[in-house]
């Protein structure tokens, strides 16, 4: 007989609005069978061998959190970088405390050296500011940390690379190398410093080779998936699949994701700019054919267009009055006027379209395109999703609803960057109103929250996204556009069932209902019950994926 595992909990939040709360959830063969109480589940007991698992009895069980827009492969390679800069800095590995002294820099490098188990693994460090951290590093100093492990450092403003002796050997540089910018001690020995272009070119190659080595892609996916899992994520979507090379990335994702120890479901949204380069007019057909490779854990999902730049790099496109300093953002590879034509085959073939638009000018253009697609070939439930939706206007939410579109929003910026961009780039009005979730809610648009991890240096932590959505508190404690706050329930939907909807997986994910995957996020407390200002601090015990338990400490 098949085992039915019943997990008891302090509370089960099903995210099924009709039956929102339970005390237990029953799982068989990796799927949810029932939610309710031990008593209400009784009718199932004849069919199964019942096992009651009490390990979560003091916890709160949610459906597994979903971050529907990440970039593990491309940004994960930078997990190999260690930050040694003077200011607190969000980096690829997460938050880094600033190091104010030279001794501190060396201590950090020593710490990293001690922590690496593979003796050949290099230390790659970035962020040194010679002006405040005691001048440039040099070879003898780095050799004092290790004479066997290659060490590579680059300054914050990436002008100067400094290597230790083993790294000089890797770079193929010795006393006879005669290139302007390779510096020496007074006694003529190389001092490990590389300045100016000609020299940094030589010095940068080894770093680039390390971070592009075969196998690094798999490592990158694994490393960031672990970070995501610790934040309670059980499913995510890679949104520029095929950026480097389609089949190479497919092999990397297969190797990483299909390993039973990999804690996430991964959906792959292919970048149109690459697909069309390979498949031309057959691109939409190709994306339908490639679905034959799908499994429950790793699956192709839609096509991605990118039509402007990014929020923190200030390369998105704004309508009048534009940027504070008058510069203009970027438009993306496809010409805007060609977009209807370019999107049509996907629209007609039923390949879900995810269209990146950060700025309001780009969103307006995207809505115009969606409108034309609708006129030409009307569709309901097409799931056309605007990705990022950072700077928008309330009327755009209304139009989006009328056209049947969805939004996947990076709302982390409201907290992390709204104050910065009030002064730099977007101006106070638009910065304050970043991520207008309240407007989307008022108009009835389905939306999800995402992190874009880790290309825009904000963390992956869905409870923080919820905290920001509900409170909209900036780093100085001020509330940014209070009318754009949403309630806890809506915010929790945006990281569960509505995120599943945006990935067209709401039939199998996003809520705890019979037949859906047994994907859970296990929390120490209930976001619906705590003071909303403490939601981000709720502990994540771990996750469950298809019935397999992953404690956060694993």
């Amino acid at each position, binding site marked *: 007989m098949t085992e039915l595992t019943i997990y008891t909990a302090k509370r089960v939040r099903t995210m099924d609005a009709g039956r929102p709360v339970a005390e237990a959830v029953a799982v068989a063969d990796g799927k949810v069978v029932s939610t309710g109480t031990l008593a209400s589940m009784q009718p199932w007991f004849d069919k199964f061998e019942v096992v009651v698992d009490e390990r979560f009895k003091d916890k709160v069980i949610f459906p597994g959190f979903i971050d529907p827009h990440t970039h593990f492969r491309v940004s994960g390679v930078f997990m190999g970088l260690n930050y040694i800069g003077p200011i607190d800095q969000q980096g690829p590995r997460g938050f880094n405390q600033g190091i104010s002294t030279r001794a501190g820099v060396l201590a950090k490098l020593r710490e990293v050296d001690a922590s690496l188990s593979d003796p050949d693994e290099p230390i790659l460090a970035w962020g040194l500011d010679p002006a405040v951290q005691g001048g440039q590093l040099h070879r003898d100093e780095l050799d004092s940390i290790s004479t066997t492990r290659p060490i590579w450092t680059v300054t914050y*403003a990436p002008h100067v690379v400094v290597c230790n002796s083993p790294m000089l050997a890797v770079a193929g540089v010795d006393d006879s190398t005669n290139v302007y910018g390779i510096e020496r001690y007074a006694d003529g020995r190389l001092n490990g410093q590389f300045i100016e272009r000609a020299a940094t070119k030589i010095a*940068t190659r080894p770093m680039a*080779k390390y971070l*592009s080595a075969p196998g690094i892609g798999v490592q990158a996916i694994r490393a960031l998936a672990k970070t995501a899992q610790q934040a309670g994520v059980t499913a995510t979507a890679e949104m520029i699949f095929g950026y480097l090379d389609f089949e190479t990335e497919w092999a990397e994702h297969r190797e990483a994701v299909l390993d039973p120890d990999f804690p996430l479901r991964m959906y792959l949204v292919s*970048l149109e700019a690459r697909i069309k380069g390979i498949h031309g007019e057959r691109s939409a057909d190709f994306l339908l054919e490639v679905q034959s490779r799908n499994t429950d854990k790793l699956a192709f999902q839609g096509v991605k267009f990118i039509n402007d730049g990014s929020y923190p790099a200030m*390369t998105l496109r704004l309508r009048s009055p534009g940027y*504070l300093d008058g510069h203009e953002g970027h438009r993306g590879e496809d010409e805007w006027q060609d977009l209807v034509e370019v999107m049509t085959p996907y629209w007609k073939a039923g390949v879900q379209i995810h269209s990146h638009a950060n700025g309001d000018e780009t969103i307006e253009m995207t809505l115009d395109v969606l409108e034309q697609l609708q006129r030409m070939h009307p569709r309901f439930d097409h799931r056309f999703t605007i990705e990022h939706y950072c700077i928008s206007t309330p009327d755009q939410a209304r139009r989006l609803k009328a056209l049947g579109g969805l939004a996947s929003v990076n709302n982390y910026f409201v907290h992390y960057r709204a104050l910065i961009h009030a002064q730099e780039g977007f101006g106070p009005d638009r910065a304050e109103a970043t991520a207008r979730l309240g407007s989307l809610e008022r108009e009835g648009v389905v939306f999800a929250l995402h992190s874009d991890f880790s*290309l825009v240096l904000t963390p992956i932590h869905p409870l923080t996204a919820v905290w920001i959505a509900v409170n909209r508190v900036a780093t100085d404690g001020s509330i940014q556009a209070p009318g754009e706050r949403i309630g806890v329930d809506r915010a929790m939907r945006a990281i569960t069932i509505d995120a599943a909807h945006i990935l067209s997986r709401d039939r199998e994910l996003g809520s705890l209902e019979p037949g859906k995957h047994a994907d859970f996020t296990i929390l120490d407390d209930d976001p619906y019950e705590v003071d909303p200002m403490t939601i981000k601090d709720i502990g994540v015990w771990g996750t469950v994926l298809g019935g397999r338990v992953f404690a956060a400490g694993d």
Partner: protein
Amino acid sequence: MRAFDTLDFLMGAVEAETIQRLRPPPSDAVLPVVLVTGFLGAGKTTLMRRLVSTNHGLKLAAVVNDMANLNLDAALVAQAGADLGVQTLALANGCVCCSRSGAVARTLTDIQAWAALPDYVVLEASGVADPATLAGVAHGMSGVRLEAVVAVVDADRLDLKANSDATRLVARGIGAADLILLNKTDLVTRSRAAALEQVLLDLAPKAAILRTSHCAVPMSLIFAGESRDDAQLLDADVEDDRFATLELRQRRALPRQQVAALIASAPAEVYRAKGVLRLTDTEVPELLQAVGRRWAWTAADTGGEFVGRLVVISSADAGAVASHFAPSFFAS
């Protein structure tokens, strides 16, 4: 300072390496690249238009950030495309949201795979990308030679005191430049121009600075003549009797440091020097390229009759230039 600049540089370098590993350049040919940078409105686009529409005999590929920015009228584009063999392309940026320098790497790799390589790639850096970062990544690629970073500066409106991201990027572009065009000098007094030149020199002590209006700059300053027949290049030059091209010949093989010292101490009016030279420390002659007070040695593509010839472009008196380089070089 922004973490984005550093990470953009690192990401670009990694992307370039990854792309080149997946798609190695099909030949050993080297692609010369000129990077044009400058703030919005300084005249960068004017310069780009000049470069693509002047009949200098060079096959160009012009890479621009946004096609719309070039705003060439249709007739000009058609003519440039057909007659002058210019290919204008938008920066391939399948991921505009992430690495700018990755986009540069990808575009250059795409061009390297063309059946017929252009003679030069002119790459326009956008107003928000860090030019030093882009230069570093382009320069780091296999089969790419970054010949010069040209910064266009607005003499009328340059203000480096403002504490903004834009100002910081302008300063970075200037700092990274080999050749600075102090443009719109027709709109300012000579004393302002001189004061600005000093500011620019402080930021970029090795750069050559040229006062221009409407970016009217001799093509031979941008595309320092290859060691071949550049009569057409020189013919196409803007009427500018400030400049002269001087051809010097080396008497014998020279120590590398000596040549470097000559460049480093050359008068400010020497803008460019280029030539395939015989050196005492190596069998094979090497190509010297100098812009302003920076130089680089690379493998020479050409040899034969061009070995031993140094072409110097300067606005100084020919005699003064010749005597600076004497006796190692003599005017032919």
